[in-house]
């Protein structure tokens, strides 16, 4: 198993009262001087993770204090220059919300060259609150996502001069990107899934499917759907096609591990989102939208859960190294195994010292044992 260290580069200093941390929180609450220090600190933590033998993951969100990395390709470029050996996963590019797929192809190709072939490219549909910030029509996103993907892949793999694209959603003349990607035929591709609906298209293409905070049961269904699709095509599913992202903190003792994990819970507790941004029209199929209207609330809302709930659901791993290993192993075995653990090991007010300590204990005491999991 490969472990990837991940921080959302949050700006945790929120006002006492606010309606929605996403989309509408005024940026007067963001102090650029504090933000600058945070960027450097978070970069240092990624570099430290590399030093400890972990791979690196970053993501992108917009108009939110939970993740102040609205232009992740730039952060990826910094990491490409500052690191030397870690794989660099951007999970991912919100390509249904990006108007110029060719530009995405160029960004990723540049960073792939700069890193001498260490980039792994994620494509994500993005959470519903990205719709407003992305100024993106929420209807037919999936169709737009796949057309953008097709154009990016063609831009990466066409080496004999320009081609043109006159698609349903995107038009581009004289597509002929410089540089081309460092890796052949192109960087590895990852795609996220939060339900089984979107899995077959990922599995058919042999990409890595990554699922976030989906715990025991939903993760299991997603991985099963991937294996079933592959099997239907006469293919095995190596574990490196499957990835799981969880909140994770390792301490010397269970108490210390849980204290760190409690600080990570800022990520779920601060995620207060106004209802109109949780359920944009067309983001989910009509039947699912109808049921959501009946129930109210959001499938992304973990705010009422306690630390114990999160741990028992497999959304969070926390404790001393033995405990963390046991928790991951139980989850791993329940869902049928996976090849990548995306470690959300920093959030909210977990400070630099404690973040580094968590990374060190995980890397020294837990990761070697995870690599042995069969």
């Amino acid at each position, binding site marked *: 198993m490969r472990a990837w260290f991940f921080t959302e580069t949050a700006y945790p200093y929120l006002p006492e009262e606010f309606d929605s941390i996403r989309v509408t929180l005024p940026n007067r609450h963001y102090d650029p001087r504090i933000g600058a220090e945070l960027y450097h600190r978070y970069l240092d933590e990624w570099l430290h993770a590399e030093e400890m033998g972990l791979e690196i993951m970053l993501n992108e969100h917009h108009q939110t204090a939970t993740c102040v990395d609205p232009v992740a390709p730039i952060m990826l470029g910094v990491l490409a220059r500052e690191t030397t050996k870690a794989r660099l996963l951007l999970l991912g590019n919100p390509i249904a919300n990006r108007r110029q797929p060719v530009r995405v192809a160029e960004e990723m190709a540049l960073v792939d060259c700069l890193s001498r072939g260490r980039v792994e490219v994620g494509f994500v549909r993005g959470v519903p609150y990205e719709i407003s910030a992305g100024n993106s029509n*929420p209807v037919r996103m999936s169709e737009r996502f796949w057309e953008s993907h097709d154009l990016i892949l063609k831009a990466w793999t066409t080496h004999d001069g320009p081609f043109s694209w006159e698609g349903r959603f995107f038009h581009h003349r004289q597509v002929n990107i410089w540089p081309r990607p460092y890796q052949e035929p192109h960087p590895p591709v990852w795609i996220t899934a939060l339900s089984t609906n979107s899995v077959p298209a990922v599995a058919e293409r042999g990409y890595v499917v990554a699922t976030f905070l989906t715990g025991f049961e939903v993760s299991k269904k997603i991985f099963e759907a991937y294996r079933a699709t592959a099997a239907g095509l006469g293919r095995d599913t190596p574990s490196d096609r499957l990835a799981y992202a969880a909140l994770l903190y390792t301490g010397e003792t269970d108490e210390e591990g849980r204290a760190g994990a409690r600080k990570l819970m800022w990520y779920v507790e601060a995620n207060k989102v106004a209802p109109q941004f949780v359920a944009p*029209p067309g983001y989910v199929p009509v039947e699912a939208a109808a049921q959501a209207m009946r129930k109210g609330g959001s499938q992304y809302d973990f705010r009422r859960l306690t630390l114990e709930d999160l741990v028992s659901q497999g959304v969070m791993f926390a404790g001393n190294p033995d405990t963390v290993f046991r928790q991951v192993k139980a989850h791993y075995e329940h869902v049928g195994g996976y090849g990548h653990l995306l470690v959300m090991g920093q959030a909210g007010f977990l400070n630099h010292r404690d973040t580094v300590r968590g990374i060190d204990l995980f890397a020294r005491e837990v990761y070697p044992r995870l690599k042995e999991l069969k």
Partner: protein
Amino acid sequence: MPTLEIFDGKIRIRDLELEAVHRGDGPPLLLLHGAAGIDPRAEYLELLARHFEVLAPSHPGFGNSPLPDLFDSVDDLAHLYLDLLERFELRDVVLMGFSFGGWIAAELAVRCAHRLARLILVGPVGIKVGDRETRDIPDIFALPPDEVMRLVYHDPEKAPTNFAAMSDEQLRIIARNRQSLALYTWEPYMHNPKLRYRLGALRLPTLLVRGAGDGLVSQQYLEAYRAAIPGARLEVIAEAGHAPQIEQPRALVDRILAFAG
């Protein structure tokens, strides 16, 4: 004249079969519904059917009308209904649209009005009035749902908000209508930047109607709409919001009869 191929509440336009209400006798009235779709039990339909042959299709993607992959703009809908008028050789049609349907009606009329006798736009959207930093129509996709209801209804108590008490089918239709509305109106939001100019070429008796308590379409906006259409009239209905056909059906139908009866 080909008969209207309406059977079991369906109307076929080439390969597209739309759900439709078809009732009443009199001059033909093509009714283009707004964001909420058509409720065949609505009182205003009954009142209109006493004086007109009312044809009210569900737009593609609304109610149970299919949504072809090709469709994603008001332009598509205007051309679809032009096709309908031609196909069935309808003449002297009263074309009426509510809200989003008013936008479709206006787009249809500026393309070809030779089958139309009168145009009635009730709380229509579709034109751009304010400057680039002033949204004319509140962004209903970015407002809390209860706030949207306050803007739509003069009396918010009448708003259908008790989702828990609705059937699966009712909820499915509401979700589907909302999704299709977003598809058609997302950007430019609720308008065509060129429509206001094009309305200047219209030579068709036109009535604009606004509910006095309409929180989505302002008096100033409809004044601009009226000024854009040569000879158009604007009337205001008291104690009604964005949907006077729901809150004041009799008052609305009286105005329609006075104008087009």
